[in-house]
């Protein structure tokens, strides 16, 4: 029988997207079900994970630890992305401005 476990993340500390991305990174090892839940007025993100192959309890614990760290990383990435979105768009627009790959809205790309 394959091992499975349910863990919950506090939705005020972690975004749904960060948790989904973290789960995706381990889809070669486990299957995941991610769902938002509200309990006693507080929001959580519940993750049910089941190992794809038969492994023991300690391997499942290791995967949960790795997932926890990955969620932290993904949340940090989101912070960077949020803070740098305007300048990122400016840089990319400038970088590709002479290639003809970027056209003003509604206009055909440059020949």
């Amino acid at each position, binding site marked *: 029988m394959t091992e499975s476990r349910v863990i919950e993340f506090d939705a005020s500390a972690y975004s749904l997207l960060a948790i989904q*991305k973290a789960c*995706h*990174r*381990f*889809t*070669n*090892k486990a299957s995941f079900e991610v769902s938002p839940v509200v309990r006693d007025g507080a929001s959580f993100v519940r993750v049910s994970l089941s190992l794809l192959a038969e492994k023991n309890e300690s391997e499942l614990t290791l995967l949960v630890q790795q997932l926890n760290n990955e969620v932290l*990383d*993904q949340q*940090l*990435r989101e*912070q*960077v*992305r949020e*803070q*740098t979105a305007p*300048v*990122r768009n*400016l*840089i*990319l627009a*400038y*970088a*590709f401005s*002479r*290639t*003809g*790959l970027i056209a003003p809205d509604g206009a055909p790309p440059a020949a």
Partner: protein
Amino acid sequence: MSQFEPIEFFNTQRADVIARYALLPFNFTALDGTRYVVTNLAGEYILLEREVLQRLVSGALCAEDPLYADLRARQFLADEHSKMAPDLLAIKVRTRNEHLANWTGLHMFVLTLRCDHSCPYCQVSRQSENTAAFDLSREHAEKAVALTLRSPNPAIKIEFQGGESFLNFELLKFVVLTAEEANRRLGQPKDLKFIVATNLTVATDEMLDFCAQHEIGISTSLDGPRDLHNKNRPRPGADSYERTIRGIAKVRQRLGRRSVSALMTTTEASLSRAHDIVDEYVAQDFGGIFLRPLSPYGFALKTRFFRAYNAERWLQFYDEALDYVIELNRKGLEFQEYYASTILTKMLTCKDPGYVDLRSPAGIGMAGVIYNYDGTVYASDEARMLAEMNDTTFQLGTVEDSFETLYTNETFLQAVDETFAYSAPMCTDCAFEPWCGADPVFHWRQHQDMVGRKPESEFCQRNMHIFRGLISRMEKDPFVRRLFTRWAHTC
């Protein structure tokens, strides 16, 4: 009066209080248990401990932090001393992507599928030497030349492929002369170059003289020492190695020392021979070696050669060979591993060498295109190998089609769109993305999906391991850092 501002001018931020800075876009990926590789949009990297990374993101770094100046100099953050940072970063990103506007530069012509070898891993079906049924026709070749010169790229390379290219030497001559003549007639002639992929076993003096006259480069195959090469590449007489080595010497004599390069294929038998293979390349006076795994196409797959080893085993082989190459350099020999050099150029300079498998969006069609022996046109060499297995997903059309029709092919556009690593799942968050690429044909073959499932992707596994390995080696050893910096600037 001094022509320089006094030092106080540059120290407007107190070193011991939290600095006022804005983050510039970057990604990070764990290198080991405590450190992260952090890359900016232009692919420049810095290593940070987790704690420093968190302070950086939360705006809590002081100007006196040891890494603050480095982070500013490499455009991970901008403060009042670096108002030009976004512009500088944009120029670097533009430089790195300038090849995109040029469109297709590499045009491969499959002159024939005939070959004198019967390599079990060969990626195109071997055919008899004596039938012209698998030769490209003159009519198709002429149309392929016209399509080639229609590309807006100012630098065009025509690469002859096979089978064994020299078995259809008359057509090779025809293509070279036709392309040169058509190029001369262009309002703005292109920088036109030729290269022929050949095992050299049937190359004659006449062929090599023609190559010398038209400055045609030679790319041959050398799998390692005699026993390994002959085992991998059987032919009548079991003398492939002897003929190839004689051919290399002859080419150098007639065309010059640098006119011939060699590629090797890693079979299961190669895996325990890393040192022997490198030694063979050194003995044959090559300046380096390109270590590459088998691809999951053609006979390699049919005969289960491809599954003879997995990515993990190939990476052990790669690491062993790379470490050996480094040791040879430490002893004074100048010798490169070219895949590492290609990646290091992306890591340590603003240039992109344009290696097809490490381009984003994918290099298929945009970097190279292949005109097959039967007049069909494919988006890459791997795409025509896939077609040999009855999967024509990546066929752009035929040489009868117009340039516009070929390059507005729906599957091709879909592949380009979906393989922009910047927006692919997992790649978008990966610090290695600026150095990596997309290989839609590989992933299509593996997952029936052009993007592929990255957690299971051998392409991803292989490249992530190599990226981490190159950085770790540089961080551990100043000699390797100097060596890798040299490699990065020679690519």
